[in-house]
């Protein structure tokens, strides 16, 4: 119960504090430069120069403190020894380049980067195309979209019920092994099956992300001008040709957006690996490796930060691409 009051109190204080800041600072500004009297014009101009910064202040403070500063601090730490006391140059990075676990993580991350965005976009495109053409399409869309609302940890539990292994003589309670034994195969411990276990983890993320891809791509497909499709049909194009040669090329831009968005999710993938295999059996990824170095055993902030900076480096091209696109839109 105290917890409830604590939370309620914080909401009230937080909300009230925010409102008080915005209202109060605006009031003070108007008091210093009143928009009337003999200097009204001058005052309004001055007040309008300051006001945006009052509106932006808290946001800039938070963005600076919680996103910009950490990147700089991580960079600094990655160049220092484990407790930050000694400058060590790039030795944390050269350590990483030679470390077997780091190489494994890089390789796995690359594998994730190839497979997950491709499969999610592919299934999303198919799902969008199929559900747009049937009566119960909206219900179907909801159900495919649903995993999006489920946490990675929850998804881990859900898929545990699919990958579970029991000895060959016992009743299989994992759906996958049950199917395999039904078809005459031997049950497998899927999550320790190197290197295929990586794919079994990826499937979980594909399952979650397909709905996202579907929603975006479905909107893009509906935005295609009817005339182009009608013209193609009149010219005798088959439904498959219409889809592949008329529709897909027109939504290439959207496909790229979906692809890069999922790419970023993939780069940061942590929870799924963390709860399902914890990086054992050759399934380590960068985010989990970083967590290991930062919070397990004797923490090494230098190495952990170096791995974090590698992650940062990997998202940078997408960041630049996004900024360029956004600026194009702004004009």
């Amino acid at each position, binding site marked *: 119960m105290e917890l409830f009051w604590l939370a309620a109190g*914080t909401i009230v204080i937080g*909300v009230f504090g925010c409102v008080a800041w915005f209202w109060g600072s605006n009031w003070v500004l108007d008091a210093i430069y009143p928009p009337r009297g003999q200097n009204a014009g001058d005052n309004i101009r001055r007040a309008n120069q300051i006001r945006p910064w009052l509106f*932006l202040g808290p946001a800039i403070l*938070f963005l600076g403190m*919680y996103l910009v500063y950490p990147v700089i601090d991580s960079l600094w730490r990655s160049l220092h020894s484990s407790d930050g006391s000694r400058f060590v140059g790039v030795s944390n990075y050269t350590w990483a380049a030679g470390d077997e676990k780091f190489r494994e993580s890089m390789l796995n991350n690359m594998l994730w980067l190839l497979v997950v965005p491709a499969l999610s976009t592919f299934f999303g495109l198919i799902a969008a195309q199929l559900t747009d053409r049937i009566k119960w399409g909206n219900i179907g869309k909801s159900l495919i979209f*649903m995993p999006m609302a*489920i946490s990675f940890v929850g998804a881990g539990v859900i898929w545990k019920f699919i990958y579970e292994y029991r000895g060959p003589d016992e009743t299989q309670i994992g759906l996958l092994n049950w199917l395999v034994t039904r078809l005459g195969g031997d049950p497998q411990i899927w999550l320790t099956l190197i290197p295929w276990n990586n794919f079994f983890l990826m499937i979980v993320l594909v399952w979650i992300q*397909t709905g996202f891809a579907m*929603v975006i791509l479905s909107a893009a497909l509906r935005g295609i001008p009817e005339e182009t499709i009608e013209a193609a049909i009149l010219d005798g194009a088959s439904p498959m040709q219409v889809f592949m040669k008329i529709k897909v090329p027109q939504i290439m831009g959207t496909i790229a957006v979906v692809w890069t968005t999922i790419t970023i999710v993939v780069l940061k993938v942590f929870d799924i690996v963390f709860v399902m295999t914890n990086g054992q059996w050759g399934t380590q990824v960068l985010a989990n490796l970083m967590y290991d170095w930062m919070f397990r055993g004797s923490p090494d902030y230098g190495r952990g930060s170096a791995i974090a900076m590698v*992650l940062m480096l990997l998202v940078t091209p997408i960041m630049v691409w996004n900024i360029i696109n956004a600026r194009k839109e702004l004009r």
Partner: protein
Amino acid sequence: MEGMAGKRSSLSWAVNIAAFLLVLLWTIPTLGLFVSSFRDRDQIASSGWWQSFSASEQTGFVRTGTDDDARQEGGLYVIEGSVLEGDQQLVAWGTGARRPAEFQPGETARINDGWDLTVNADGSYRLTSAAPFEMRRGERIFTTTEVPPTITTANYQRVLTAEGLGRAFMNTMTVTIPATVIPILIAAFAAYALAWMQFPGRALLTAAVVGLLVVPLQVSLIPLLRLHNDLGIGKGYLGIWLAHTGFGLPLAVYLLRNYMVGLPREVIESARVDGATEFQIFRRIILPLSFPALASFAIFQFLWVWNDLLVATVFLGNTREQLVMTGVLRELMGSKGGEWEILATSAFISIAVPLIVFFAMQKYLVRGLLAGSVKGG
């Protein structure tokens, strides 16, 4: 034309079936968890959840009574009892571990030179001997029984009371609600400034927000934990609220700015001409008109914070009282791998709230996704 119509209807059949299969494939995993959460431990361990609507077979053994339980009946010594409990049904039985299903119910087996054992379909057994019994432990009877499918809510009762999930639920709520409300306010003001005010550096700031959208929050963990310690916030709710506010802001500002830019210019200009202050314009015009965008972001942030494990693990303590639901789930997966019924039920409770929010507010979620599809989770 007829041919074309026929082709179209067969194609639409194919589309319907394909869509159905796809939806089925995407729904089955969650359905499995849902069904499992209503089954008891023995059922989960002995059969797959997809078999939970048919009777399941179990094997086991019971011991007969010993010489103390024997009574004399005519010239015979007799031990009687039942091998069944509850609503089980006997399928087969046996007397040795090698052949546990050797006999049908009602058959009589001869064991140990001169003992006759009969087990009936109703579970009653009768062990007879001409000589007095001499045994310290009862004779084993192996049984194969069929249990009718049952649905139980006992898991939910147990999880919510005894397993501490109720506490975790409260913790998650405590983390989530302020962490959703506070960034909205801060972002709304900033977005308005970026969308409708003139000042030098506006384009640069907007670009910075877009750039910050994709910063991996892993980069922030250690520096922020250090910063919080230096500021005296330490590990606790305040820290996690601030952290989630910071991490959620880029998306919030980006979504709201994009939405506010699209609001009709005339309304805002005429309000300015009428002498309304910027604060009044914001509160009376911009905020109400931006409701859809505010709702979109609120859902994103709610789902993201509720489902988060990493930030909670780092910024909250890891004692039993401080864990959020994702943390409890993670612990259950590690330490209680065998307690399927607890795991399934806890998982379902933890995903129930986001699912309700999802289905209730899907419209806004989709709208938000379409407006801000550069954010990467």
